Structure formats: structure tokens, C-alpha cells
């Protein structure tokens, strides 16, 4: 599903963002990635979404070799990955329904599929009654749920969540992770980057810790709060 082989990323400014990283995430896994600022988390996500290419090594995601993928194939690769951001990135002039449907429209899915799929994902994130609301009328937690619904709308094999709980009330962070775990149970691989160690301690699961561009910890940890 996600594989990095001897990957290093050196930026022009002389920064070594990642150094000889080897990583494999299997289909259906839920993985937390933690690390301080500058540890290499963002660089890792940019590699997985093919925003950048490694200076050395190879990156494989969802069966695509991202190191030498053709430019014209990148959009098709990205359709297999759902992205969730800490700043939600919703389109202000579209309501909740259309924000979710937007992904399906731009990837050329039929109106019929959109009519079936969007109500399903809105129900999954418990926003059916907010379908006609615009982003400026939503709370932070609701906006992030819309973003999760949007990421899941095209039924991607992999969801990348980049600090999805950073801009919402701490109490709601747990609901967001619960939602992502629910999506994970449907068979979707979830990679979640977070600063909040309390979430990892509460939910447990595979934890990858980065420091100065290197993986310093990669193992399954037990959670104190809920069972799988």
C-alpha cells in the first residue's frame, strides 16, 4: 500500500528533511505518525501524495511508483488517496453537500453515483441534517467532518490526515479519530499525522515517530481508552 525504500530528501537550502527512511504500511492499517516540528512529517506526507520526489530512494503508493510516475498519471494516482488537512480546505461558496460532491464531480463520476454516495458519507460523518449549510455556518468539528466525508467520498484506498485535530476543540479530537477509525474499519488505510500524543495514548495502534528526518520508533502501542 505505502512503501518507502531508502528514501532521503535534501532541500536546496541544505536541509536534510529525511535520511534513508524505510517504511511499509499495509492495506487496512491505521497508523499514527508523530514528531516535533522539523522532524520530517510534512516531507513524508508530501512524498506520499507526490507533491515532491525523493532525492534518493523510491516511493510506492497504491501500486504507483511515485519516483518516476508520468505527470499525466499523477491526477489518477491522487484519486486513490483522500487528503484531510488541519485547515479543512473547504470551498466557501459551496454547501456541505456540494463540497463533498465536488470531489466526485472533478473526477468525472456520474450524477447517479454522486446522488447515491454523498448522502451515504454524510450519514457516516453524521452531517445529513447539515447538508445545505455553508462552511461559514459550521463549527470547526463539523468542518473537519465535512473534510473527512470529502476525503472518503471517492472511496480511496488510503486516507492521509495531516493533523486533523489541530484546529478543533480538544474534546472533539477524539470524535474525529473515532470517525477515522470507523472509516478504517471499512478497509481504508489511514495515516494520521498528529502532535497530540494523548490521542495515541488513548487509542493506541501502530505508531511511527520521526526525529530529525529519521524514524526513531515504529511499533504497535497499546491504547488506554478504547478497544479496536
Amino acid at each position, binding site marked *: 500500500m505505502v512503501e518507502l525504500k531508502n528514501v532521503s530528501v535534501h532541500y536546496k537550502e541544505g536541509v536534510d528533511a529525511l535520511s534513508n527512511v524505510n517504511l511499509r504500511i499495509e492495506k487496512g492499517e491505521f497508523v499514527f505518525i508523530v514528531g516535533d516540528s522539523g522532524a520530517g512529517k510534512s516531507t513524508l506526507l508530501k512524498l506520499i501524495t507526490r507533491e515532491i520526489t525523493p532525492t534518493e530512494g523510491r516511493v510506492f503508493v497504491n501500486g504507483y511508483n511515485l519516483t518516476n510516475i508520468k505527470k499525466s498519471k499523477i491526477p489518477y494516482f491522487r*484519486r486513490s488517496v483522500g487528503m484531510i488537512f488541519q485547515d479543512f480546505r473547504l470551498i466557501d461558496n459551496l454547501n456541505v453537500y456540494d463540497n463533498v460532491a465536488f470531489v466526485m464531480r472533478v473526477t468525472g463520476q456520474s450524477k447517479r453515483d454522486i446522488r447515491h454516495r454523498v448522502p451515504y458519507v454524510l450519514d457516516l460523518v453524521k452531517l445529513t441534517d447539515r447538508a445545505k449549510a455553508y462552511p461559514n455556518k459550521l463549527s470547526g468539528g463539523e468542518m473537519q467532518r465535512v473534510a473527512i466525508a470529502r476525503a472518503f467520498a471517492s472511496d480511496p484506498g488510503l486516507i492521509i490526515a495531516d493533523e486533523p485535530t489541530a484546529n478543533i476543540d480538544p474534546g472533539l479530537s477524539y470524535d474525529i479519530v473515532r470517525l477515522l477509525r470507523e472509516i478504517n474499519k471499512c478497509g481504508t488505510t489511514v495515516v494520521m499525522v498528529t502532535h497530540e500524543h494523548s490521542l495515541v495514548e488513548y487509542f493506541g495502534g501502530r505508531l511511527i515517530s520521526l526525529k530529525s528526518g529519521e524514524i526513531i520508533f515504529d511499533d504497535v502501542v497499546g491504547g488506554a481508552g478504547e478497544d479496536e
Partner: protein
Amino acid sequence: MNNLSYLLKQGFSSIWKNRLMSFASLCILTVCLLLVGLSGFVMLDCGIILDNVSDKNEISVYMEDDADINHIKDVLNSNTLVTKVRYISPEEGLESMKNQYKDQTELFESLPYNPVPPTYMVTINDLDKIDMAVGQFQVIQGVYKVNAPMDFAGFIEDIRNTFTIVGIALMLSLGAVSIIIIANTTRISVFARRKEIAIMRIVGATNSFIRTPFFVEGMTVGLLSGFTSWILTKVIYEGVFGLFSESLGMWGALGMDNIIKFSDVAVQTLLVYCAAGALLGAIGTVLSMSKHLKI
């Protein structure tokens, strides 16, 4: 099909969202097409008039009343440039003038005598040497005036050359301005939709999907400009054409009655205008996207 209607809708809604810039683009592009189009018409009409004048490449050699017309005829016939000499008596000349100015017959009725001199209409074999021929005819004894149609032809030629230069200059300068304005409109559209574009990239929209609405926007403005300028050209050209038609007595003699009628070329002109507008719109959009929408 779903995508196409979605992309068209996005393009049209973008025109409305940036209506001020779109309107500015439309106006500039319309003025550009209108001026270039009108210059083109003038150039073509001048060409037609020149052809007409060239067809009538007869030099009028007016003689004194007491001139020896036979001697003059011999001199003219002996000139190597001359191919044909035709005599018009004063009576025939007056009759011809009366026919030409049918609306103003009272002018001729009040004449105390026939003012038309005996005339030879001389056809020469080389139009380029018309000045030389005129010079040679003027010195023949008994000739008091020589009129060459090329004086008028030279005037028309000057108009055509001026409009050719003006037309090309307008086409280049206003074309460049139009492209810059459309490129700027596209830039503003890209900026207004930057968030949407970023999300499109993330979720896997193809380059063509992201770019098509901007093409729709640029080309629609171009097509609308083409249509608007076509209507304006029709109104202006037919207005001017009408003025000439009213006084065809005078202009007809100069070949003006043969100039292009707008109704004969209306469809072709519309197609050319719309194609030119759409092309300028597309060029502006491509230039802007290559700079501001790198995917």
C-alpha cells in the same frame, strides 16, 4: 457529458463573477476587431475601385476648338504607347455628361454654349508609363489639357496603403492589448478560484479539467466580442455604403458602385470575426495559464 456541462457552467459563471474585467476585455477586443475589420473592408474596396479605374485606363486628351484634330490623331497613333484612339465630338461629350448627371439636367439647360471640347480617348498599352504618355500628349500642338485616370487611382492607392498600414498597426497593437487584457482576466479568475484549484489538484482533477473553464471564459469573451464587433461593423459599413449609394451618379463613375455589399459577405465576416475573437481569447488564456496556472 456530465463533465462538459459542469465545465461550461464553471466557465460561464466565472465570466459573471469577473464581470468587470470580462466587460473590459469584451470592449477592447470588440474595438480591436471592429477597427481591423473596417480597415480590411476599406482595403478591399480600394482594391476593387483600383481595378475599376484600371479597366478604364483611357486618357482624355482635350483639344482647342480650332485644333487640327486629324493631325493630332496622327500624332497620337504614331506614339508607341498608344493602342487605341477614339474621337468624342463636343456634342457626344455633352450628351455623355447629361447621362451621367441625370438628376441635374437644369445645369446643362442653362448653358449658353457647349463647353465640352473635342476629345480623344486614348488607350495605352502600359499603365506604368502613363505619366510619360501624359507628358508626351500635353506637348502636342492643339492639345490644351490631358486627364489621366491614374491621378484618382493614385489617390485610391494612397488610401489603400494608408489603411493597410493602419490596419496592420491596429491589428498588432490592439491585438496585443486584447491578449494582455484577457490574460489579466484569466489571472484574476485563477486567483479567485485558487482555493478550488488547489483542492482540484489534491483530489485528482486532470489538467484539462482544471484549465477548461478558463478556456471557456476566454473564448466566450472572444466570441461575444466577435459577434458585437460584427454588428457594429454592419451598422457602420452599411451606413457609409448608404451614403455612397445615394450619390451614385458621381461615385458610380469612379467604380464605387462595385464595392463590397455587406449582405454579400455577412456570414463569412461573422465567422472570421468570431474565429478571430475566439483565437485572441484562447491565446490570452494560454499565456496567462502558462504563467499563473502551473500544474
